[in-house]
């Protein structure tokens, strides 16, 4: 942790925020809304003991679970308790090569030759089994990633199943997606996914790839491998032909081995802009196709004529959903000056009602931060915001003794040059800024190398269209935020990457049009 001063403790384990000399820290000592302390919620944990996590997880290659070439495994822990959950195989380039060979064989012998209608039926089968095992997968996702069960159960898992269901239907209708063309599969797709939505990102990648006739080698993030390996068991249960999807768990080098493998035809990556640029460099001159879904620093613009109470809910959903571990999170709040006091007051009240704690508790709004380096990054960036003169507002809640936690936070008095206004924090931290005119709002919103998403709140319809049109972002939510659907393409402008995932436009990433 690169904090400049140990004296200033922000979000320590027991005392979230204390005013410090020279630092305008604004802790919330008084509560107008006392839900959190006056009315204690009885624990309401989701049952988890029925779901057994095997002590060791192997690689999934050619339809079978196999030991890694290295013979090594690494611990996967529960970020809410720091207890080890299981051991995950450490895949290396030998394993990647095996997986690519298996995918190539499956592509040439089986998958590319199979009629689209039959391919589609496998996806339908997979979707149905996911729906059946939805609760188990949600529990595993919460245990492994620290995500609140409310979100894994009600958002992640329904969308995972929906992605397979939606793309299943495309498998035999692709010629209608590309008028005048006969789309062909690309071959073997190498896919690398992040830890924020482990199973959902796997679905976003695998479903369109195999629906379009490609085969897959996929690598989950080091900290969240369990649910993807459980999905591999579902592929076995669905009798998906061997080698159509291969899972190689591991670390960064494992992903690099996939990207560099000469027999991979397409790379799909979701993760940081920094790594995305490195991968883009690696495929130069190889002829490999690449799509990148990278970081963001979304502006959420609140006009004075917005429905303020709805907007507050949208701000909350925009930044505190999934602890802010969302590439499209509405992490920069732009408030029109005239409503700034109202918005900040309501926001202060509202964040105190967010319940932080056991991810498996059905009442939990804020779960655990996914991993320790991320927690340190959040702390460091918040510290930089305070050091640069922003005012800190945090909920006064007790953080659990063990695990990685960060309370819902926002910073006011942020200027465009502050690091918290420029860098992706990827945590429950909102940077609040103001503007006077719509032109200024657009200018500020677009003043970032990123361009993944944005939000706009106003009751005036013509203003919505005008602002939506001017924002340089791939997804714009008007009077709503953080909505996702398999029929709706997702992806960024500028340094948030290229290519789209989902919907009609997302199919292009997995088809060759000659």
């Amino acid at each position, binding site marked *: 942790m690169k904090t400049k001063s140990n004296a200033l403790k922000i979000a320590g384990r027991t005392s979230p925020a204390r005013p410090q000399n020279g630092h305008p820290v604004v802790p919330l000592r008084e509560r107008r809304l006392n839900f959190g302390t006056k009315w204690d919620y009885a624990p309401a944990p989701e049952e988890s003991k029925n779901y057994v996590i095997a002590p060791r997880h192997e690689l999934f290659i050619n339809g079978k679970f196999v030991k890694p070439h290295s013979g090594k495994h690494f611990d996967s822990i529960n970020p809410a308790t720091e207890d080890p959950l299981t051991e995950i195989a450490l895949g290396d380039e030998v394993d990647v090569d095996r997986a690519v060979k298996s995918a190539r064989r499956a592509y040439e012998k089986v998958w590319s030759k199979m009629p689209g209608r039959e391919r589609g039926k496998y996806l339908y089968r997979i979707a149905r089994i996911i729906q059946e095992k939805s609760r188990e997968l949600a529990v595993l996702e919460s245990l492994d990633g620290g995500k609140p069960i409310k979100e894994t159960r009600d958002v992640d898992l329904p969308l995972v199943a*929906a992605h397979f269901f939606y793309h299943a239907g495309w498998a035999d209708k692709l010629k209608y997606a*590309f*008028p*005048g*063309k006969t789309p062909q599969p690309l071959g073997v797709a190498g896919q690398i996914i992040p830890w924020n939505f482990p199973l959902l990102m796997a679905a976003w990648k695998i479903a369109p790839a195999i629906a379009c006739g490609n085969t897959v080698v996929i690598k989950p993030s080091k900290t969240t491998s369990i649910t993807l390996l459980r999905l591999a068991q579902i592929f076995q249960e669905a009798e998906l032909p061997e080698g159509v999807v291969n899972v190689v768990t591991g670390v960064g080098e494992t992903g690099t081995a996939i990207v560099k493998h000469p027999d991979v035809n397409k790379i799909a990556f979701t993760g940081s*802009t920094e790594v*995305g*640029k*490195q991968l*883009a*460099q690696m495929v*130069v*001159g190889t002829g490999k196709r690449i799509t*990148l879904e*990278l970081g963001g620093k979304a502006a959420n613009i609140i006009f004075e004529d917005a429905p303020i109470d709805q907007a507050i809910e949208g701000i909350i959903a925009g930044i505190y959903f999934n602890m802010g571990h969302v590439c499209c999170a509405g992490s920069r709040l732009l408030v029109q000056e005239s409503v700034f006091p109202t918005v900040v007051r309501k926001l202060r009240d509202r964040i105190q009602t967010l319940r932080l704690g056991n991810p498996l508790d059905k009442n939990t709004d804020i779960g655990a931060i996914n991993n320790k380096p991320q927690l340190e990054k959040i702390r460091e960036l918040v510290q930089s915001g305070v050091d640069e003169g922003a005012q800190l507002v945090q909920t006064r809640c007790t953080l659990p003794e063990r695990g990685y936690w960060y309370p819902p936070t926002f910073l006011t008095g942020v200027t465009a040059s502050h690091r918290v206004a420029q860098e992706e924090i990827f945590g429950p931290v909102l940077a609040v800024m103001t503007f006077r005119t719509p032109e200024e709002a657009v200018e500020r919103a677009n003043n970032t*190398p990123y*361009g993944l998403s944005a939000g706009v709140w106003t009751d005036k319809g013509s203003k*919505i269209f005008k602002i*939506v049109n001017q924002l340089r*972002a*791939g*997804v*714009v*939510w*008007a*009077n*709503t935020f953080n*909505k996702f*659907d398999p*029929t*709706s*393409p*997702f*992806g960024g*402008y*500028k*340094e948030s*990457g*290229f290519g*789209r995932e989902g*919907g*009609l*436009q997302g199919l*292009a990433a997995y088809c060759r*049009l000659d």
Partner: protein
Amino acid sequence: MSTRLDVKKTYKLFIGGKFPRSESGRYLPAKSPAGGHLDNFAHASRKDFRDAVVAARAAVNGWSKATAYNRGQILYRAAEMLQNRAGELVNEVARSTGAGAAGAKREVTLAIDRLVYFAGWTDKYQQIFGSVNPVATSHFDFTTPEPTGVVVVLAPDEPSLLALVSLVAPVILSGNAAIVIASEKFPLPAATFAEILATSDLPGGVVNILTGKRAEFISHIAGHLDVNAIVDGAGNAELSAKLQAGTAINLKRYASRSLTTADWFATKAENPYWILDTVEFKTAWHPIGV
């Protein structure tokens, strides 16, 4: 009887709707296939390229906000101007490439027809490639293509004019502004094309044309942070790799157009999917309710 001396001109660059000489003061001689000296043309520098990016960026704002109908009319107007001055272009192609009058005429007329073809796409590609998305929640959700911004286009040597038009039209029809690096071997048709474009209604800066040595521009194109995309029709693997390295700097979009000379004359070069290489899809959501 005294013989009249021809007036020779030096072909200049086309930046922001104006015709500057290279700021470097450099020029190069254009040669006929037989090796005779035709005319001199400007040898653009890195600074000229950077000026062109500034001009293109300034033009994007207005051009991308012009209605699709208006952009279609302006591109059609450009075709009208080309038709009117086809003889001039035929002469330029013929004397530069040695194609012969018939061959040059074929290239020029096809270039005009191709411009008409793409002019018609300005108000249609959104309907073909955009969508209304049937999301499972109570939202109205739609996806529309928007221009990505400033696009660098590298034209191949042959056919120097037809390929240039076929590459630029799908870039600008959606509202992008283009900086064209013209054929190094046959720059004069491109320079004359610029002079004709300047008399159409195309706003200054929407198309900028630089002549000179292609390889000198490559690292500056790849490294420029205000370039959004590269459309590479130069067909040179080494230059292509260097250009693609630019994607790693600011994630520029890169599209390769490796066509044979015959392909440029075929329908393969009338591909509306090319439009999609320099647009961004924007998806907007709004709740449905009372």
